[in-house]
């Protein structure tokens, strides 16, 4: 059994199906009588719908057509604020907003028909940037365009700027990023008044959809069923958006009485679905003679897009990471999510933290330069450590030693040797090299009282045949949840792993263990799985058991963790993963291309449950972050993405990534039965600042905006020369 246990690289459970092409993704499924659905969308960013007409020589009578007036329940995507419709009704607030749905058995005719729906819209003025939204150039949401704001304050800011300390100010920007899961979004729905609504598809959060469809159809919960199909990547992109596609497919199925499949093609997926929130951060810091931070003033703003969706939570996480892993007595953080007329920005691996950590980690390098300390030494003097207090009042109790992590990363990357060598060689070479680092943390699990509020439940079932079934709503999206849950149960029950089945989420069968987000699956849900397995073990000790038996476990907030959502004080996260990343970069001064030549990622993530899966998460995240920094740029025109093809939105290929070297330290999390912490999002946070810090080291030019493409490097080099 040891070979299946926690800490071993057990082979991916559904791996065989994946390597043989047998795994069934949503587009691989078909149902008798199934027809295809398509979405007709707005061509303008903002306006009032005047007329909808169905033109051309299309046999319209063969089509199922759905508009807002066909919605049986509420035409509102139930999430945080109830401001977003499934189908625009009267007003449109962003390009590519869904207005009309069509379905037909012939895909080709359907595509033809989509082009012949004419929607006339009287345009209204629209805004597309954070600055215009803040300036209220046009009010496009609520009273003041502000979808959410936070304030965190500690200490006394007044005297910090005048007492002779070194003050540094900076402004930092990050752009939108497309998740670019390789499987585009898709859903299949079967729906009728007698049986209710069943949707299957590519998704991360079955119970988000379940909750939303109850409202959309005004049906009782037991009449709604959501089933996950094998999911070809999510990265947050399949957190909230699938609810809309599920709703659309279900509306068409409801009206037609036939199963309806909607699969987005790549272009539709790119232009219509969510992306990472663009952000801008202003930071002002003061540092004393000892190189210690004495004051930080941070103003963090994200672009929420036309509707609120998850922006408040993204803003929250971004805000709670904006100060980095540093101690500082006097801190003020203000933050806002503001509306623009672009499609809503949404969940994407890191969830606000990569944006605000980019700002602080670039800023720390700039301050270090100003005070004449090396980037590592300046950080070291300010690190949080056990017993120290974060600006939220949270006292660190992770047993983390950031200084030791830093030492290890410096050594593994030969940071100082290489910096010296590059400084020498750069003077005579057209290719300039540099080293950059970032130190950071990522809060594991839901923010604040989120986990307490979710109160997740998992169940484990044992059958007469000796099969143990793990029932959760956590989705396998490639991260390895099937495998890790099986390992946890195998270890607890001391049974062979092939006797364990990890059930595919189906809301009719599994309890609500919460969404698959926020790096919570292994830590929180995995912990509950371990607990349930223990309960089962106890139960099985009893005599005369009637199989099948089922046990559950439910999340309880640990007594020593509390957070006040009103004042934003307390333990924002039960625990954090901590990391030091080092990038070695070269910049070709002939072409202004930057390339990452080597990448060292050292992190403390609690107990490593499965080394292959864990390092796979880090490598994938680092590559995705390299994309965010050096290649991936969403080109906007009037709120619409205009480079929505893989040809023009450039993600890294196998020749663009450096060797990504991953190292773990493991201090088990005291409140997790397995000792695991969150891991999935962490690798998205560090690469951006580490790479731009390395670029500055290489060419001596400070660039504070990502993405940073060769054209941007050229501009920055010219600006600095001027």
């Amino acid at each position, binding site marked *: 059994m040891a070979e299946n246990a926690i800490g071993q690289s057990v082979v991916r459970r559904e791996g065989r199906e994946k390597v043989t092409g047998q795994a069934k993704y949503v587009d691989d499924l078909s149902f008798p009588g199934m027809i295809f659905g398509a979405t007709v969308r707005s061509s303008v960013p903002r306006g009032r719908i005047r007329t909808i007409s169905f033109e051309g020589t299309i046999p319209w009578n063969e089509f199922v057509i759905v508009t807002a007036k066909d919605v049986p329940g509420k035409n509102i995507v139930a999430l945080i604020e109830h401001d977003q419709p499934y189908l625009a009704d009267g007003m449109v607030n962003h390009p590519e907003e869904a207005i009309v749905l069509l379905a037909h058995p012939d895909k080709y005719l359907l595509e033809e028909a989509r082009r012949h729906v004419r929607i006339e819209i009287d345009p209204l003025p629209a805004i597309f940037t954070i600055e215009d939204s803040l300036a209220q150039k046009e009010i496009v949401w609520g009273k003041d365009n502000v979808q959410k704001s936070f304030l965190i304050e500690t200490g006394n800011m007044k005297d910090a700027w005048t007492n002779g300390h070194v003050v540094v100010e900076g402004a930092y920007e990050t752009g939108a990023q497309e998740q670019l899961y390789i499987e585009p979004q898709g859903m299949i729905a079967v729906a009728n008044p007698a049986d209710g609504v069943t949707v299957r598809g590519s998704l991360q959060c079955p119970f988000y959809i379940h909750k939303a469809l109850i409202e959309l159809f005004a049906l009782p919960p037991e009449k709604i069923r959501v089933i996950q199909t094998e999911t070809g990547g999510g990265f947050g992109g399949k957190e909230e958006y699938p609810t809309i596609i599920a709703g659309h497919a279900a509306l068409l199925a409801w009206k037609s009485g036939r199963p309806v499949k909607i699969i987005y093609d790549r272009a539709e997926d790119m232009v219509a679905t969510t992306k990472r929130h663009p952000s801008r951060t202003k930071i002002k810091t003061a540092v004393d003679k000892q190189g210690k931070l004495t004051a930080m003033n941070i103003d963090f703003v994200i672009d929420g897009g036309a509707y609120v969706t998850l922006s408040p939570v993204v803003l929250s996480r971004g805000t709670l990471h904006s100060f980095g892993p540093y101690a500082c007595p006097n801190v003020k953080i203000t933050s806002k999510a503001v509306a623009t007329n672009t499609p809503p920005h949404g969940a994407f691996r890191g969830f606000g933290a990569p944006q605000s950590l980019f700002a602080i980690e670039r800023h720390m390098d700039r301050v270090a330069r100003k005070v004449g300390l090396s980037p590592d030494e300046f950080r070291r003097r300010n690190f949080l450590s056990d017993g120290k207090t974060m600006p939220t009042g949270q006292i660190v109790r992770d047993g983390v030693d950031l200084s030791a992590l830093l030492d290890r990363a410096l050594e593994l990357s030969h940071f100082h040797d290489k910096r010296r060598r590059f400084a020498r060689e750069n003077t005579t070479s057209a290719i300039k090299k540099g080293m950059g680092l970032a130190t950071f943390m990522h809060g594991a699990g839901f923010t604040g009282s989120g986990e307490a509020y979710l109160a997740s439940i998992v169940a484990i079932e044992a059958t007469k045949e000796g099969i143990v079934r793990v029932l959760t709503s956590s989705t396998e999206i490639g991260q390895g949840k099937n495998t890790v849950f099986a390992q946890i149960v195998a270890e607890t029950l001391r049974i062979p792993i092939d006797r364990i089945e990890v059930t595919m989420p189906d809301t009719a069968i599994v309890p609500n263990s919460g969404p698959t987000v926020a790096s919570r699956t292994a830590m929180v849900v995995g912990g509950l799985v371990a607990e349930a397995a223990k309960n089962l073990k106890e139960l099985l000790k009893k005599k005369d058991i009637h199989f099948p038996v089922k046990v559950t476990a439910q999340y309880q907030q640990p007594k020593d963790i509390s957070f006040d959502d009103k004042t934003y004080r307390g333990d924002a996260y039960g625990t954090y993963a901590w990391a030091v990343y080092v990038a070695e970069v070269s910049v070709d001064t*002939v*072409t202004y*291309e930057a390339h990452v030549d080597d990448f060292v990622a050292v992190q403390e993530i609690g107990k490593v449950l499965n080394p292959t899966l864990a390092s796979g998460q880090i490598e994938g995240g680092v590559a995705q972050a390299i994309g965010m920094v050096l290649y991936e740029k969403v*080109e906007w025109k009037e709120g619409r993405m*205009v480079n929505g093809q893989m040809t023009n939105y450039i993600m890294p*290929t196998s020749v*663009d990534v450096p060797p990504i070297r991953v190292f773990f330290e493991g201090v088990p999390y005291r409140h997790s039965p397995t000792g695991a912490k969150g891991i999935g999002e962490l690798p998205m946070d560090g690469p951006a600042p580490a790479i731009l810090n390395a670029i500055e080291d290489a060419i001596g030019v400070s660039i504070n905006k990502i993405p940073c493409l060769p054209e941007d490097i050229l501009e920055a080099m010219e600006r600095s020369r001027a």
Partner: protein
Amino acid sequence: MITPKNLDEALTLLADRAAGWKPCAGGTDLMVLFEAGKLNHTKFVNIAALTELHGIEERSDAIEIKALTTYTDILKHATIQREFPSLVTAAALTGAVAIQNRGTIGGNIVNASPAADSPPALLAYDAQVELISVKGVRRLAYADFHKGYKQMDLQPGELLKSVLLPRTHAELHHYYRKVGTRRAQAISKVCFCGVVEREDRIKNIRIALGSVAPIPLRARRTETFLIGKQLSSKIIDEAKKIIDQEISPIDDIRSTAKYRRRVTQNLLEEFLCGTGSTN
């Protein structure tokens, strides 16, 4: 789409202008456009299997590369590797393996993208092209083939038959550099190919560029200026100014005109400096 039995049948079909047939070779450009609904044509002649348009022939004066030759075929060809290394580099940097296996040199030329990667190499090697129709075969310098954005000296009913690369015994220095959106599977933002024959002074030089004009461009004025010159930093600076006047790049979703100008100049400098000592 139909598959003709042989070249004659294909040419007869294509000769019927009213019918509106369009040839399809590897389909790597055509299928993308077709799927995106960007093609007016609905009738296609499948030329992929026409044996008459396959193969590479070595003659004493030239290498003849038939239109349906794929990048993979070019990559593996020993003589091309030896004598026309920049064309091999271009092929190796076109798309990735799956595209190299299907994409043809003929399709690359007739698709007439200003960002295509083989044309700069073909221009720098002073290639000729042969065109064939029911009326017969004609030959012209490849440099005269592209007339304007997506406009060519290709008559309706004509197929590109082959590309001819003239062989030479001269000692050449070859330079090819593609600056794309990433290192592989990328569209060029600037593509530069240069061939130079140099003793003390520059005896002969040809420079061609992609993605900096509506057509793949021969930088003739820069060439003329450089011939007979002894390289110095002053000469290089002047050449950079001239090439900057010859190109007419634009801002688009992949890059900026400014970037393309600057990089073109830098690449010219890198090319010239790599040819031997400057003073």
